[in-house]
């Protein structure tokens, strides 16, 4: 076991212990908030796979969340399926949609891809309104029985942990290497026998599946209600912002990105002195922070962690008399 891996494993264990103990110190409201962090964690993780690793930008992940969320709501409402059983189902349905969108999208790149996925994000809520027979149109659709706060917290973070491990396993091996090859140079990847269409589409599907699970949890966290307005374009933009704050192409900053997106609206509300002002002008606070983060933290939170780790490492090496090589990032 090499050292970064050991550090990562240790950090994960610490995080798991803290997360397991945390709910007992939180009020019900804060438990829901913490669950939202978990679901954004999953969504951002998903986006990071396709954008950060495979290099395919997507502004449509809110739509995949909508698909997952409505899967849960409809299965639970119309067929009385157990909520936990709907989560893998949401993954599969969203995965299917992801493949269906990813296949044509693999022809596009850059800005064209961004706009095509944006189109998807804009269209899905409209389609939900249109097929009101299944979706309850603007009134939404509610799950058969609502869930407890603690239950929600446990399930959300358990899903987040599973998703993280799955993503890590996926990205460290052959497939992850293929993703990065596609991202860094399509020409080089293609000439080494990596199928561009297959890997781009596959990345889209997996990523959409993660977003679908996040969407199911999202519905469970909003009192078990699925409404088209909740899944507007803004949701897609939030996920993208979260991914940028976390740092694309790395798994370690995602928690920070998720916390940023999930908590900023409510933190700015409770902030001393400026709290009331910020509460009324949430958009302003959000915009300012997003721009500031992009200007000041070019590689996101993961980059910050990485740099911090490098500084620590070089300092230790210097003190033990080793050579402090400036590691190229």
């Amino acid at each position, binding site marked *: 076991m090499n050292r970064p891996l050991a550090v990562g494993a240790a950090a994960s264990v610490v995080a798991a212990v803290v997360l397991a103990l945390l709910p007992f110190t939180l009020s019900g409201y804060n438990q829901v908030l913490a669950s939202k962090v978990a679901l954004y964690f999953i969504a951002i993780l998903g986006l990071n796979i396709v*954008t950060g690793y495979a290099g395919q*930008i997507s502004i449509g992940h809110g739509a995949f969340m909508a698909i997952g969320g409505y899967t849960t709501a409809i299965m639970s409402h119309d067929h009385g399926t157990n909520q936990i059983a709907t989560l893998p189902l949401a993954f599969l349905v969203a995965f299917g949609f992801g493949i269906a969108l990813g296949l*044509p999208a693999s*022809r*596009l790149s*850059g*800005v*064209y891809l*961004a*706009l*095509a996925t*944006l*189109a*998807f994000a*804009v*269209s899905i809520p*409209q*389609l939900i*309104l*249109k097929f009101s027979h299944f979706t309850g149109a603007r009134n939404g659709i509610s799950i058969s029985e609502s869930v407890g706060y603690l239950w929600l917290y446990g399930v959300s973070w358990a899903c987040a942990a599973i998703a993280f491990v799955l993503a890590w396993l996926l990205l460290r091996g052959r497939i992850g290497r293929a993703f990065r090859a596609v991202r860094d140079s*399509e*020409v080089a990847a*293609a*000439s080494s026998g990596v199928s561009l269409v297959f890997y781009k589409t596959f990345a889209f599907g997996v990523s959409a599946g993660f977003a679908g699970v996040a969407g199911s949890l999202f519905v469970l966290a909003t009192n078990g209600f699925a409404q088209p307005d909740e899944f507007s374009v803004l949701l897609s*933009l939030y996920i*993208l*912002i979260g991914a*940028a704050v976390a740092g*694309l192409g790395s798994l370690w900053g995602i928690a920070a990105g998720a916390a940023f997106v999930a908590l900023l609206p409510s933190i700015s509300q409770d902030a001393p002195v400026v709290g009331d002002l910020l509460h*009324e*002008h*949430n*958009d*302003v*606070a*959000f*915009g*300012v*922070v*997003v*721009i500031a983060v*992009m*200007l000041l933290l*070019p590689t996101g939170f993961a980059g910050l962690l990485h740099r911090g780790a490098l500084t620590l490492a070089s300092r230790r090496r210097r003190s033990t008399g080793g050579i402090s090589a400036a590691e190229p990032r």
Partner: protein
Amino acid sequence: VLVLLLAAAVFLLIGSLTSDLFAQLTVKGVAQGSVYGSLALALVLIYRATGVINFAQGEMAMATTYVAYQLMLWGLSYWPAFFVTLAIAFFFGGATQQLLIRPVQHRSVVAVVIVTIGLFSLIDGIVIWIWNADPKFMPAPFSGAVYDVGGVTVSLTDLGTIAVALGSVLVLWLFFRFTKLGLAMRAAALRPGAARLVGVRVNWMLALGWGFATVLGAVAGLLTEATVFTLSPTMMQPVLIYAFAAAVLGGLESPVGAVVAGIALGIFLNLLGQYGGYLSDSALSLPIAFFVLLVVLLIRPSGLFGRAAVRKV
């Protein structure tokens, strides 16, 4: 593509001659489409200058329209306020590029896109802060006159919209084509390195590009207000999305394409709303517009007028 366009024009002409309603809808579509087209052109200008899509374009247009509203509250009449607003928009756009975009420009596309999304949220918030979210009403730029052209009723608002939108596009084209500054700006956008070598101040040219784009956006914003008669913080969001579609349809590289595609989209949506049958539901117009967009992109990945990027393998 030209053949297709010609066929579409002939189809529209025949339709207009046989049905008054059809002609009326076509004119309305051209008016709406020219607004989409001018915002799409603003997007194209920025794309050519900076290589990114400005998600805040619509909100910047909305904010400048609020500036015009404020100027009119202070007693300016419509057209002076219109031109003062355009001047303000120019500085607003240039300053945005210098302060917010330039620092992240050399980084990834994603970084710039996210900054513009942040800007989107910021402008929205500031506008609501200053003017609150209630819809506002501005004096109309054109009288409510309606003309009868051979049985087809055409409103002055539609004609004025077409004239102002296409007029500003034309002025911009003349500027880029025939002035030295325009040439310098094109050079800065196409070959920044070479332009710098021959003495073009590339950064200022890019700021100018953002300035002009914001001016076009302001025109689109003011014209949108003139057609929907109310001013609200969300008014530009649907327009922006159609402008995206138009810009992509036209090929992001092509100014002509953006305008033509904008007008085509306007006509298409208007006719669809009347003759589309099951598809004429207004809730479906966005998905349909995007389905068309997706199909076009799949057939021609760089838009109708764009040049395909050549890749060496």
